[in-house]
């Protein structure tokens, strides 16, 4: 137990000193994950909204597929993206393997189904409430999607947060396609995995603390936002 307290002390000191390596790793983590979540939103929000607001042939299959893809194991995603981006793969010419871009691609593949599937559920519920009013007013398809996404904005914040949580904590996919190269593709999770196995516990724990604090802060912020939305009956 003494050992743990000592390591924790060193870890906190590392955080407070603003260690440049630590800052670099945290920065890359956020850049990769926020980019992936942004791309996941661009793809997943409209996809989920369309699946939630319209009836079309094959819709049931799309919904089942989206739900199934939510549970994709990160290592499998990593492997598939690796195969696509490797020199002999279909996207090999892009030369993205072992770059942050590859990590963004992998995490985008991971979070898009999560965002799409959860958005579909949220939008479908809301559309159930709005459908007749929209039909009465004669709301067109594009307007319908936009209005539903906007009116579901506070619920969708939680959806985006779920995507962020999944991506930022994920290690399997980014380690395969990023390679955990020092100063290039090292992010918080891959560093924790590596440094722990090397016995460099204070850096690992420092990153663990940051990861935890990040998760808590983002969750608290979204909860507070939602609470104010509920008071205004906007959620």
């Amino acid at each position, binding site marked *: 137990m003494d050992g743990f307290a000592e390591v924790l002390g060193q870890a906190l000191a590392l955080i407070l000193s603003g260690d440049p390596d630590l800052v670099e790793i945290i920065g890359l983590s956020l850049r990769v994950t926020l980019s992936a979540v942004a791309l996941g939103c661009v793809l997943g929000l409209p996809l989920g909204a369309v699946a939630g607001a319209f009836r079309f042939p094959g819709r049931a299959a799309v919904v089942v597929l989206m739900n199934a893809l939510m549970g994709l194991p990160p290592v499998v995603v990593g492997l598939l993206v690796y195969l696509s981006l490797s020199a002999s793969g279909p996207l090999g010419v892009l030369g993205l393997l072992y770059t942050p871009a590859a990590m963004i691609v992998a995490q985008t593949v991971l979070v898009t189904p999560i965002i799409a599937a959860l958005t579909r559920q949220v939008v479908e519920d809301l559309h159930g409430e*709005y459908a007749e009013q929209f039909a*009465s*007013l004669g*709301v*067109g398809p594009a*307007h319908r999607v936009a209005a539903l996404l906007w009116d579901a*904005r506070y619920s969708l914040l939680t959806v985006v947060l779920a995507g962020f949580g999944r991506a930022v904590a994920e290690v399997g996919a980014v380690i395969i396609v990023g390679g955990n190269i020092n100063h290039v593709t090292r992010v918080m999770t891959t560093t924790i995995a590596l440094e722990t196995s090397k016995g460099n516990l204070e850096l690992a724990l420092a990153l663990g603390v940051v990861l935890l604090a990040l998760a808590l802060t983002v969750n608290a912020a979204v909860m507070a936002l939602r609470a104010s939305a509920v008071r*205004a*009956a906007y959620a």
Partner: protein
Amino acid sequence: MREVRMHADEPFCGAPLLRRGLTPVPLAEARDLTLRADGQALLDGVSCSFAAGRRTVVMGANGSGKSLLLRLMHGLIRPTSGTVLWRGAPLDRRARARQALVFQTPVMLRRSVLANLRFALAVRGVPRCARRARAEAALEQARLTALAHRPARVLSGGEQQRLAIARALACRPELLLLDEPTASLDPASTALIEQAVDAAHADGVTVALVTHDAGQARRLADDIVFLHAGRVAEHGPAAQVLSRPRSEAARAWLEGRLHLGP
């Protein structure tokens, strides 16, 4: 989408024609509507009409098909057989844009009162520059100006219903359909809503209103359609239906033997 033409431009109004002893022009007409679900006839051979410029009150017990009739007239659901006519032609999308339906439970977007109005105007193709003024005029009319920036869904039931009516009227419909707009409201809210309906009617809007409140029917109805078990039991001028009902159902109701609800 084209802007809905102002009802003030309309060349005629039903009431003056009637005074001259002519048949009122049916703005909307149900011809032999039947609606079946699971082998059961919810509406069975319903024929009735909403005469231009008049207020038609649709009455009947719970489950007699009043809401379904309004939805059919508005084109939200299709009849199993029969037709809905708008100015003598089959109802289509453009005709529906000439109507506005106020649902029994108002559906409010998760936005401010003003934003709810502006949304409806945007959907109905009112140019952006005209929306604000028209929305504000509608709020003024509904006496909701003070609540313009409030989230619509925190308004009281009566205020939401008035907003729903204001939203419907802001679209300048020729036919305003209202499904039990005052059910479960207090007398003060009811009075405000009846005033709004009256004002719309005075502006030339044709009104079709569902109620099972006898007092409201007496106050508002020019014509009455009385539904019983999915059929039209009686359809005629209010004065006649309320004083000399021909159908057993309407008689039973007037004599207090048939309770309409809620």
